[in-house]
């Protein structure tokens, strides 16, 4: 019985709020079999299969109670259950399956429990491995580690009174742990993980204040508990970086002094190349953070800010309520374990792209730096004297517009493919309009490289049906200018009909910064603007 979990899942903090329903007691198999056939699941986003080994695998009970058993029988029962889960998995968004563990209060014969194919713990491991193998091909099934829940709880997991009164085999603390873990994983499933950690330097990445103490007196690594803790903290941050979380620096310091320590200090774990962006200066931190977030094209809700200084945290919390700005632990010894306790870097997969993410940001900024040669990217863009020319779709530009529509993959919102006549007919319908864009700068004219089509909806609303741009003109905020133009021209509440494909991630990354939420596709007018370096005519 896990009823006490419901209230904890439905609590707003931590997000998300999860409204759950519990199926009848001790009827996991019947329920799964019923679900595979009926459509009662159609409204559920997530199914959680929380079973005990003795409750769901009858043969396991024999082991627990020292009766003769057949290992094959146990594993067959595991396969059966996995098969039922696989059948249900096709009917629901995500299936969470809790792996099996015996509660810590149940002490089997310790001298025998790991004995090959005989001991309780040994067989339990086999069961979990078998379950993981059998569910491996079901991509929306996530196996959760119950053993870890017990081990990391560090409080009693069992309350005899709850067991006696209501057959509840877990304590309140265990349910709190379970709810926190389930919610953390669901945030990962929903892609709500934080993507960037912005760190302070003094007394955060290292002990001491470099501007006062000097690089040689920083407490970092070495035979010093404080120094060791900071080094271990850096190692934790580096692990995050390796799995795709970006790191950035925001510190009030003399830039040269700080970089020298980052580059030269023998005990530094994180080096210059580990940071996708940095602002080391005496400016307001909120200001600096705004720049970093914009530079990396992220949203505040994807960011964590770590600073030992309460006043700085307060400033940033005030300026960016969506940025997670936790209090750091009082004792620096607790810094290393602290990152994991934030539960905000959940993911369901780590891809090669994730592992190379910081590098790709660095390449991009290096490329830009070399292009600009002197001065900032903004100065470089301004020096290009970019003009965005807009015209309505007409018979004269129809051929090129159709080509663009059918060839563009990466920066393409809907990836609608149409031939000339279809496109022409579509945009001739009442309330429909299509613009084509060409880009010129002092170096030349790109010709028609962008297209937006729109349809008026009822009342104040309009929807962008197509929004695409050739990758030849990417990286110059042309897309901002196009969107700004459409917004002005339509003078309506803008929605977008985004359709994800394997290749239009660049468009998604752009539009994610614009929409209020993906579901409605409603764009936030406050986030649309004309870049100063682009003239529209």
């Amino acid at each position, binding site marked *: 019985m896990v*009823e*006490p979990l419901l*209230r904890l899942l439905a609590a707003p903090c931590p997000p998300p709020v999860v409204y759950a329903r519990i199926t009848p007691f001790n009827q996991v198999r019947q329920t799964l079999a019923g679900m595979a056939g009926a459509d009662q699941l159609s409204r559920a986003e997530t199914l959680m299969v929380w079973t005990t080994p003795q409750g769901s695998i009858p043969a396991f009970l024999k082991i627990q109670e020292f009766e003769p058993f057949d290992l094959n029988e146990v594993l067959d029962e595991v396969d059966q259950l996995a098969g039922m889960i696989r059948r249900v998995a096709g009917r629901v968004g995500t299936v969470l399956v809790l792996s099996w563990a015996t509660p810590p209060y149940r002490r089997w014969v310790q001298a025998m429990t790991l004995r090959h194919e005989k001991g309780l713990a040994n067989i339990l491991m086999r069961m979990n491995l078998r379950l993981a193998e059998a569910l491996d091909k079901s991509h929306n099934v996530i196996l959760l580690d119950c053993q870890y829940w017990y081990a990391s709880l560090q409080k009693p997991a069992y*309350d*005899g*009174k*709850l067991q*006696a*009164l*209501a057959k*509840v085999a877990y*304590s*309140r603390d265990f349910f709190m742990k379970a709810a926190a873990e389930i919610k953390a994983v669901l945030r990962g499933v929903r892609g709500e993980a934080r993507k960037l950690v912005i760190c302070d330097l003094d007394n955060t990445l290292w002990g001491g204040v470099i501007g006062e103490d000097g690089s040689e007196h920083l407490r970092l690594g070495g035979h010093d508990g404080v120094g060791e803790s900071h080094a271990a903290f850096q190692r934790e941050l580096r692990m995050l970086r390796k799995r795709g979380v970006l790191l950035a620096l925001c510190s009030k310091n003399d830039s040269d002094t700080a970089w020298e320590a980052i580059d030269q200090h023998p005990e530094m774990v994180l080096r210059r190349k580990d940071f996708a962006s940095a602002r080391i200066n005496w400016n307001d931190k909120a200001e600096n953070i705004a720049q970093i977030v914009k530079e990396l094209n992220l949203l505040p809700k994807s960011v964590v800010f770590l600073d030992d200084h309460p006043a700085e945290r307060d400033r940033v919390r005030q300026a960016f309520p969506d940025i997670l700005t936790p209090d750091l632990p009082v004792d620096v010894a607790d810094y290393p374990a602290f990152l994991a306790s934030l539960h905000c870097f959940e993911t369901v997969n780590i891809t090669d792209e994730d592992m190379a993410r910081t590098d790709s940001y660095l390449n991009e900024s290096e490329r830009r730096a070399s292009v600009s040669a002197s001065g900032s990217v903004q100065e470089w863009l301004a020096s290009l004297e970019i003009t965005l020319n807009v015209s309505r779709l007409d018979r004269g530009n129809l051929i090129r517009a159709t080509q663009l529509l059918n060839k563009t993959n990466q920066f393409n919102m809907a990836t609608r493919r149409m031939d000339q006549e279809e496109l022409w007919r579509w945009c001739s319908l009442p309330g429909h309009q299509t613009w084509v864009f060409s880009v010129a700068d002092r170096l030349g004219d790109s010709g028609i490289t962008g297209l937006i089509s729109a349809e008026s909806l009822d009342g104040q609303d309009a929807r962008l049906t197509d929004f695409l741009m050739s990758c030849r003109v990417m990286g110059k905020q042309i897309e901002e200018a196009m969107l700004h133009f459409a917004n002005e021209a339509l003078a309506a509440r803008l929605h977008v009909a985004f359709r994800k494909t394997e290749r239009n991630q660049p468009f998604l990354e752009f539009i994610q910064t614009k929409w209020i939420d993906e579901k409605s596709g409603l764009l936030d007018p406050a986030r649309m603007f004309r870049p100063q370096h682009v003239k529209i005519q």
Partner: protein
Amino acid sequence: MSVLEKIQSIFTKVLGVPKSEIVLEASRNQFAGWDSWAHLDLVMEVEAEFNCSLTMAETAGINSVRDLAELISRKTGQ
């Protein structure tokens, strides 16, 4: 906060009823939501709040706000 005030906020959280209804005289059958699951939730929250442990007999013996408040006062000396 007094014992009663703390109990009131726990009741509000678990049963979703306004504080004003959670008076000492109020008994279990006056709250539609105070079923056996809510009873366990209340006991678990009270144990966490007051850092104490109720026995099974004590848990089963709570039939009003007063029962709970007096039990907590007795156990914690508050």
